[in-house]
């Protein structure tokens, strides 16, 4: 007998309107609404930044505002995606992705912020495989977020490397900053994903990354995420590995 689809994850109407209309309904609707506003805000800030003369004194502040707006947007996107994923409602669709154009897109998304902060964003031009297989939107969101973090915490450079190693796609984001704090490297998963009042980290980004990685599989293999210090630039390294 074949195992049935997991019952737990199937929302079944139980006829009670009240339980269906719990807080999550409002949270989701509001998150959508907020996301729309943030999108408009981001677009205006980008255009303002493009029009500002390079020497304008308001440039740094506008840039910071843009970064914060993009951060909110990332969080909302990830919250909404996680909500859907956890309810089996996310339209997960791994497709073959051309790695060059994937790289162009994620770099394009972070470049305005990096340029404004004077950070150099580098990529490794050579690669053995031209394409890999994953859910485009989820991985774009995940890597963009990771690049954003790197740009924020690095000193001068960020390096994105997209390579196939041992039949797995490895996407690495290096920086030359301080590196991850020790507790993030050594701690168990729970601690890393947990809310940390000391650092102000919500753990959302890493949780999202781990969850999305794990959704990607190839036969018995599953995707994973990993944090390290050192490497090419001597700072922090975020590693996503997809089978």
């Amino acid at each position: 007998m074949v195992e049935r689809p997991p019952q737990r994850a199937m929302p079944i109407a139980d006829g009670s309107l009240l339980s269906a209309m719990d807080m999550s309904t409002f949270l989701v609707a509001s998150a959508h609404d907020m996301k729309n506003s943030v999108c408009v805000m981001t677009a205006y800030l980008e255009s303002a930044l493009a029009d500002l003369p390079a020497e304008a004194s308001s440039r740094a502040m506008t840039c910071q505002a843009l970064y914060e707006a993009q951060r909110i947007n990332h969080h909302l996107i990830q919250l909404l995606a996680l909500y859907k994923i956890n309810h089996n409602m996310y339209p997960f669709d791994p497709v073959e992705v051309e790695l060059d154009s994937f790289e162009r897109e994620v770099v394009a998304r972070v470049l305005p912020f990096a340029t404004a902060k004077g950070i150099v964003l580098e990529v490794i031009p050579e690669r053995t495989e031209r394409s890999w297989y994953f859910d485009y939107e989820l991985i774009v969101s995940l890597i963009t977020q990771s690049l954003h973090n790197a740009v924020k915490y690095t000193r001068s450079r960020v390096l994105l490397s997209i390579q196939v190693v041992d039949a797995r796609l490895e996407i690495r984001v290096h920086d030359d900053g301080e590196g991850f704090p020790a507790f993030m490297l050594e701690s168990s998963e729970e601690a890393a994903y947990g809310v940390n009042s000391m650092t102000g980290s919500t753990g959302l980004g890493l949780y999202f990354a781990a969850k999305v990685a794990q959704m990607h599989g190839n036969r018995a293999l599953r995707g994973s995420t990993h944090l390290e210090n050192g490497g090419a630039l001597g700072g922090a390294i975020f590693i996503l590995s997809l089978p």
Partner: protein
Amino acid sequence: MRGILRELLRRCGARHIEVAANGIEALNVLRRGKCDVILCDYHLGAGKNGQQILEEARHDGLVSASTIWIMVTAEKTADMVMGAVEHQPDDYLLKPVSEATLQSRLAKLIGRKAALAGIAAAMRAKEYQKAIDLCKARLEQDPTSSMEILRIQADLYLNLGQPEKAGSLFDAVLARRDVPWARVGMAKLHIHRGHFSRARETLEQLVGDYPNYLEAYDVLAHTYQRQGAWSDAQRVLHHAVMVSPNSSQRQSALGESALHCDDLDIAVSAYQKALKLAARTTYKTPEPYLGLARVYTAQNKPGEALKLLSQLSIDIDNDEARLQGKAAEVRVHHVSGNTQLAEAAARDVAARIQSGTQNLSPAATLNLAETFMLMGNKETASKLLQFVVLNNHEDEELASRVLEVFEKGGMGDEGRALVKTTRQQATESMNQGVRLASQGKLSEALEFLNEAKSLMPRNPRLLLNHAYVVIALMQKGGWRHDMDNDARRSILTARQISPGEKRCGELLAKLETLR
């Protein structure tokens, strides 16, 4: 948002930018002149959504094969993933759209467009063989786009009725890696071949491995329905409509499952949603009307049921839908004890079916014949049953169901004899047609087949023999528009009746090479 996009496009180097505030304005802009790139918000407020505008623009020929249509949406939705390729826009762009993203995406699309435009256009024109050839050429030219092309190609093989070829494609893909769409494809093949338990097994495993892969739920529900596991189907569809509620077909399938489970309230609400969704599109089907009418009849609301059936004849203006509506009417009148009205409607329907120009599915015809038996009209009932046998003379299962209806009407012996002679009659005319054709007497064969067709207008075997002879005549005497139409009609009717039939694809492909 429009202002922002205009500004973005300007910075990307676009020269002539037109802005439309809603769908109707957008269509007007397109009517004034062709555009190279269209950015369209999926959510256009009240009225039609972006997808419907796209379909209308394509339908009216307002966008050419080289136009790039980009749908801008707030989030990835199931509709983006599950829609048919030929109805999809060239790409989706998630908000926020930045200048850099837009620029890199446009660069990519311009290249890809050149590659896929021809394939999509051929699919829209239903020239499947041509589309397959284009896929093959593309695969040789540029192996990097292979997965996407292979997925389209497999769909095409299924459309052409060539499941074996689709199957070996899925196998090849799955040998390379574990890909959910190829596993769904495999399940569809099992369904095609009537192996429902295997389809079910494949899909249940798939849903376990990829609980977020939605297409699997639809196909799994369909499998459950075919197995008569209606409550399983209802459970799965219930989940699918929560994820993606905007498919009329899915809502209708939920309605049907709920009706079978006697969950009449859920059935009513699902069918009503199906009707509401279909009201805004050009693709309307009779199923939700007929289904909801059945629910109303079961709820003892014959008035509501009849109102809906007359709405069906207004909304869907073709003979088949009208006939199905009429047949449903017979049931409503009969169940509500309106004998005279039931008989009048029944006579009307029977005459239309036997004329052969209009048709019901065998199952629906059997239901109707049963109603006639109950009403005491044995003569019409047996005529209808004979008609079913003539058109499906090789189908043992159907023959035994025909006998059941005869027995219910107390006509067991007569029925058995009738079924036997009718099947013989059909087999003989089939053989005669083949004999003439193989002797090279093509015109004679055609004449004979045309006559046989008036007797069994819904017999797929006969229809395909007919198409075969017409094609053979054209191979000898040259292509003719009217003959092409004749052959095509026969093949398409046969495929509609018997979708798994391999010869449909072969003959259609042959027909395309003649043009």
